């Protein structure tokens, strides 16, 4: 069974990482094509590091994605909690349906309808430009919310309802029971939601295209426009760099949690050694 699991995991990962391998390979292409390898070189990496517009787009996207993820996670956590505790089923269904709308609408409809909304609001307020970073952020939060809520809600459902009540019976204030009992339980859901919101923002194209202003370009929009004229390996180099940054972060994270576990293990072993010595000594004393 164990080997079957290993093989299965390996197959899935081959599937998931095959295009990444292709991307990494082509990023080192000495030639200009993305299908024909012509020797190896680092020219595209040099290009990417010099290309101000692309780096700016990358920075924009990172800032946008993190802001959108954090805000939508906070908003979504409270929303999930509120929805879970709603007693009237009809209201709960209604809120869930409305929440899910951005998820159920094709991106292009969400994008265009939000753009229309912003243009309408802009004309009312008489502002100089109708779209900006803030409209983009609002749009991103809006489409991330359903995913966040959908990640956290099952964890609420899964939790034993008696636990927070028991905590309060034992003397916790409602806030404490939330922080010490509920929050740790739903934490994996929050984390999943956060990561999902970040990922959605990072990769989004259609909605960003329609709701961003003239001075703020996200990475995907930038790349999309680049592909219109001869797809070159430069963006492959950029993606490969992102991949390695993420990989390094992952390794660091792994190492840190490994440190946690190693410390716990050492403590346990020290305790076991101490107990053994204690037992030997008491045994020795008894014998004497």
């Amino acid at each position: 069974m164990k080997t079957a699991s290993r093989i299965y995991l390996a197959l899935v990962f081959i599937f998931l990482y095959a295009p990444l391998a292709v991307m990494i390979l082509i990023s080192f292409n000495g030639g200009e094509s993305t299908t024909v390898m012509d020797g190896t070189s680092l020219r595209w990496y040099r290009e990417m590091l010099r290309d101000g517009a692309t780096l700016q787009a990358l920075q924009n996207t990172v800032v946008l994605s993190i802001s959108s993820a954090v805000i939508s996670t906070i908003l979504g956590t409270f929303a999930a909690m509120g929805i879970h505790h709603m007693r009237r089923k009809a209201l709960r269904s209604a809120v869930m349906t409305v929440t899910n709308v951005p998820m159920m609408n094709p991106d292009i409809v969400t994008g265009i309808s939000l753009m229309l909304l912003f243009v309408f609001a802009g004309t009312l307020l008489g502002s100089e430009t109708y779209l900006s970073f803030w409209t983009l952020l609002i749009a991103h939060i809006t489409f991330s919310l359903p995913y966040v809520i959908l990640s956290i809600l099952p964890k609420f459902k899964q939790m034993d309802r008696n636990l927070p009540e028991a905590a309060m019976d034992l003397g916790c204030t409602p806030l404490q029971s939330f922080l010490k009992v509920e929050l740790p339980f739903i934490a994996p859901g929050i984390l999943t939601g956060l990561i999902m919101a970040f990922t959605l923002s990072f990769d989004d194209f259609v909605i960003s295209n329609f709701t961003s202003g003239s001075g703020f370009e996200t990475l995907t929009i930038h790349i999309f426009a680049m592909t219109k004229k001869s797809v070159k390996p430069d963006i492959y180099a950029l993606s490969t760099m992102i991949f390695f940054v993420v990989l390094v972060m992952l390794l660091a994270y792994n190492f840190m949690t490994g440190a946690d576990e190693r410390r716990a293990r050492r403590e346990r072993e020290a305790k076991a050694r101490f107990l053994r010595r204690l037992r030997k000594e008491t045994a020795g004393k008894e014998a004497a």
Partner: protein
Amino acid sequence: MKKIINAAQPALRRALALAAAAALLLGSLAALTACGASEGTDRVYIYNLGEYLADGSEGIFDCISGFEEYYEELTGRGLKVYYTTFDSNEDLYAKISSGASGYDVIVPSDYMVARLIAEDLLLPIDLEATCEKYGAECYYDNIGPEFRGMYYDPEDEYSVPYTYGRVGIIYNTNYVNEEDLGGWDILWNEKYAGKILQFNSSRDGFGTVQYMLGIDVNTTDPADWELCLEKLLEQKPLIQGYVNDEVYNKMESGEAWIAPYYAGDYLFMLDVNEDLGFYYPEPTNIFVDTMCVPKGAPNREIGELFINYMLSEEPAVASAEFVKYASPNTVVRESEEYAEELGEEAMEILYPEDFDMQGEIQANAYRNLDPETLELLSSLWEELKISGGMPSHVYIIAAALAVLIAAAIAFGVIKRRRRSKWW
């Protein structure tokens, strides 16, 4: 605070750390949106097609920082250029149609310029006046007479030509027989079934048929369009796919052997795969891309200065070399460096002898069609795409799955009903 952190599990601790880091970044966000535009710095917003301007890559001239420097010399004020890109005229239109898009310079194609003018979405450009105001040299005379008075802007009030080009047939010399070359019918040649590409754009796709049959590409006669659809339906089983930017990859790798595309793009592909050839079937589509100033531009004069700057020698030559499309700029065509950089073959392809620009534009450019014809075009194109449907095994598999799922749900519901009877 400490108690909360200690009590929570490590996962929560990590989540909190993440949130703290994110909050820090949010703080830097505020700094970011403020920076880049301090006192004494002007801004300008340029919206161009992707990779359509010499931007300093691989050591070539950088028009953007070049313009910033030029502006500072000219006025003594700093400038930040916000250069963003779009990928099609229609996308551009969607952004501009609100009338307050925040851009100062846009780069639409001929038919789109006509449409924008008709819908009052452009501001008139007066390069000479703006140059005089800023004490700059005006380069508008670099645009020769054969590029003035185009149908879409007869008084040259709203646009300044930037590039132009024509569609041709790109083919792989290793696999394609020379005798089959020369016209549009090569795209219908059964010998090369499965290796032919076609435009994934309704106007261009229909265009290939219209040029082949000698029909006016701007016809409003529905019968003409229906006839073209028939030809396209004939072609569908023979083509490998309807493509836009994938054409580069597919032709370069030899996955496909024949494709209709633009002359300048052929030159790109040639760099990668020397076995590619090119010719113009007659007649063929010609396009002109122009620079315009949209309505509501917040810095229109700086925008006009930019357009003027792009007409001067260094930016124009560098961009023409980079983009590889033909340039309407006399200085570029007469530049020796440019001719050397491109090479004889490329120069011949881009600038054929005795080329009648005005005549070609009159006869063979796409014009903005009326809404009814556009609707017809759109629905005919849909019909083309939908014809033949998908291979039947897709529908069979989907139906089987649907049945299985319905059965599973029914089974689950019945089981649950039965179990709940125990309660």
